[in-house]
């Protein structure tokens, strides 16, 4: 099996597959950790029981999602070596320290305080427990900082030199870390994580409101989530626009692929709304386009000239159809999310936030939208940077391990089977937890151990009482 296959293609498929599964969990846990910190803070300040109930409700879900993020993340950290050893050798001196800092400043912080956050409320008291929650939330953000810095360096490398062994080495660490695309990517991704989480929380709240409009927990989470969507979606669209302009400056070929601009336009490039990009014939078939709008968006002038892929050597073209379509999916969902936020704002203003089943159905439908948008966004930025791993400097084909196709192919199949078995089970457990409405006296993780439920049921309740 796999004789005659290209080992590099299989390695890329493996990275894409394992990465797509992985990114969903951090995107969710970054947002959820912050949300949990907010809920616990609100509980400590207001002492309202609904907040600690919601905290415990989402904590159980967080525990399952976080576990899946950890195990799929360990796979990623070793994959650089197993499938991409040339990349590891050449970029290790630059990327390696950034990932080591991610482990030291973020992973340990999350893991060290996670146990206390999940199981320690009655052992350490509310204040120390809140500190643990805060540390986990901060850890997830620090993790995003380092990994996005490393990724951004691969997209827009600066501050490096090349040594005699052909390795990239850092000449200026500050320039390596704060490379040109990093601030934009960081803001865009963290906002995406927050939006993704708010959509999930909103969908769960809406789902329970459709059954019981008076359920206090459902009302609170729905309202909080809709505020988030209302406020952050427009900011995210603005941040995305800025990120795009930054990409135009540093990775023009990626933007050409996103826009489907095979040809250069001297006076005003059209915005191609939809169409079928044909890489071979170098044109977009069945294109529906708005004249000059692309120049207006990218250059802020109707008649500004825009270069196309015809100015780039063909061997440096990214795969246009994937980049083109994943970009449209992301942007389309972005506007739908903003629509949901505005709709909720209107209903809130009319005092009908909890009484509008249409809004609730829309919110339920939009529950997974954040995940899809995050995946589409990542596919856009990662395929758009092809055929390089370090943009313009190291080709993907020169990055792989010296492995035969059967080795890479077998491990790919193993990952596919295991990930589908394990993570689908995990998603089912999460959905099952979400299907339960939040109720007073909600317990934290692992409370369905029958022995404990009999013995210590009042633990969280007692903590609530104690805090009053």
């Amino acid at each position, binding site marked *: 099996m796999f004789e005659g296959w290209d080992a590099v293609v299989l390695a890329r498929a493996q990275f894409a597959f394992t990465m797509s599964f992985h990114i969903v969990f951090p995107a969710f846990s970054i947002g959820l950790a912050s949300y949990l910190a907010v809920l616990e803070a609100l509980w400590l300040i207001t002492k309202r029981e609904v907040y600690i109930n919601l905290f415990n409700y989402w904590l159980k879900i967080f*525990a399952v999602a*976080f576990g899946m993020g*950890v*195990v799929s993340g360990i796979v990623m*950290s*070793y994959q*650089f*070596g*197993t499938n991409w*050893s*040339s990349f*590891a*050798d050449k970029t*290790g*001196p*630059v*990327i*390696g*320290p950034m*990932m*080591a800092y*991610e*482990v*030291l400043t973020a*992973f*340990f*912080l*999350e893991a*060290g305080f*996670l*146990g*206390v956050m*999940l*199981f*320690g409320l*009655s*052992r350490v008291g509310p204040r120390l427990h809140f500190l643990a929650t805060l540390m986990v939330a901060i850890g997830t953000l620090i993790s995003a900082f380092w990994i996005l810095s490393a990724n951004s360096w691969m997209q827009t490398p600066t501050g490096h030199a090349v040594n005699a*062994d052909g*390795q990239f*080495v*850092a000449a200026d*660490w500050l320039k390596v870390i704060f490379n040109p695309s990093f601030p934009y990517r960081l803001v865009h991704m963290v906002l995406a994580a927050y939006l993704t989480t708010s959509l999930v929380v909103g969908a769960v709240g809406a789902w329970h409101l459709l059954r019981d409009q008076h359920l206090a927990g459902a009302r609170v989470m729905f309202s909080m989530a809709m505020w988030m969507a209302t406020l952050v979606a427009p900011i995210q669209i603005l941040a995305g626009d800025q990120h795009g302009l930054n990409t135009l400056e540093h990775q023009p070929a990626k933007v050409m692929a996103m826009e489907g601009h095979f040809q250069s336009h001297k006076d005003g490039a059209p915005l191609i709304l939809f169409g079928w990009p044909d890489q071979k014939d170098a044109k977009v078939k069945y294109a529906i386009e708005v004249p000059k709008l692309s120049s207006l968006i990218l250059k802020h002038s109707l008649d500004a000239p825009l270069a196309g892929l015809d100015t780039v050597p063909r061997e440096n073209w990214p795969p246009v159809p994937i980049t083109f379509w994943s970009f449209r999916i992301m942007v389309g969902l972005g506007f739908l999310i903003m629509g949901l936020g505005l709709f909720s704002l209107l209903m809130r203003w009319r005092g009908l936030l909890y009484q509008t089943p249409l809004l609730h159905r829309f919110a339920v439908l939009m529950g997974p939208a954040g995940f899809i948008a995050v995946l589409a966004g990542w596919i856009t930025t990662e395929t758009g940077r092809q055929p390089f791993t370090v943009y313009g400097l190291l080709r993907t084909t020169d990055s792989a*391990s*010296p*492995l*035969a196709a059967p*080795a890479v192919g077998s*491990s790919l199949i*193993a990952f596919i089977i*295991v990930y589908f078995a*394990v993570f689908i*089970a*995990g998603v089912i457990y999460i959905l099952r937890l979400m299907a339960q409405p939040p109720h007073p006296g909600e317990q934290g993780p*692992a409370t*369905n*151990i029958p*022995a*404990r439920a009999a*013995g*210590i049921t009042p633990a969280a309740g007692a903590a609530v009482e104690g805090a009053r």
Partner: protein
Amino acid sequence: MIDLTTIWAFIIAFAVFVYVVMDGFDLGLGILFPLFPQKADRDVIMNTVAPVWDGNETWLVLGGGGMMAAFPLAYAVLMPALYTPMIAMLLGLVFRGVAFEFRWRTQKARNKWDLAFAGGSLVATLAQGIALGAILQGIHVEGRHYAGGWWDWLTPFSVLTGIALVIGYALLGATWLVMKTEGELRERAYQLSWILLVAMLCAIGAVSIATPFLAVQYTQRWFAWPNIILTAPVPIAVAAVTALLLRALGSKNDHQPFFLTLGLFALSYAGLGISMYPYIVPQSITIWQAAAPANSQIFMLVGVSILVPLILGYTAWAYWVFRGKVRPGHGYH
């Protein structure tokens, strides 16, 4: 001569050792899981590590990430050479990692996740032991690349080290249970500790005898004059720790068996270091050949010297919070 690269070799060795110390007992519990078929026992066993397992595995990420950063060439050569054991380890860790939460979330499939926990732990441990043996027996390197096939790692020696590690982790797990549990469960852990200790001593013996036959360098390192003055204390210390361990088990001490087993691990690990140093890929790449440029090493050294003590501090705190015996039905509350 202590230079930056030597310091980094010790830091990576330290991270890997901390991983072995912390995840060793944790994987060992998984290996022992089939021997504790009752649900109540299994719940207690799980609860002894549930709050800390994630932190334990983070040391593995630090070992891997740190190696890529400080010795990128070694990372780039070793990972493809150990391809199959590495993938098997990662998949094993996936199964056992998710089992911690999943088994509480289902009644019907709990046994399935218990099996995933046990099987995943066993596979991950076996793979780590095999990887160790495969490194010791030497790796075919050409230029800056691994140049062997994708089954080179599989030899009688690597299988021996794989089994040895399974026994070792199981002993750590058993002595951990002696420390953390009570009653009948603790009694069973005691009995297992005796059997596993005997097995572990056989395993240490077998690996120690086999290693010098792998390469003449190992023989010289251990037995040539004057090295033997420096290496002889290791087997002597192993004998001493074993004697203490037997006494501690005999007197049914709570904490000593676990920490003395860690002592055995530390000595075996030191022996490994004596065999390998200064090679990071035995007989082909030294730590200096594999080292990242000084500015990468310095940049990370700053972080490591500030953050690792901090990490050890709050990790110790987390263990302190969940200290003491875990009782059935009480979980970690």
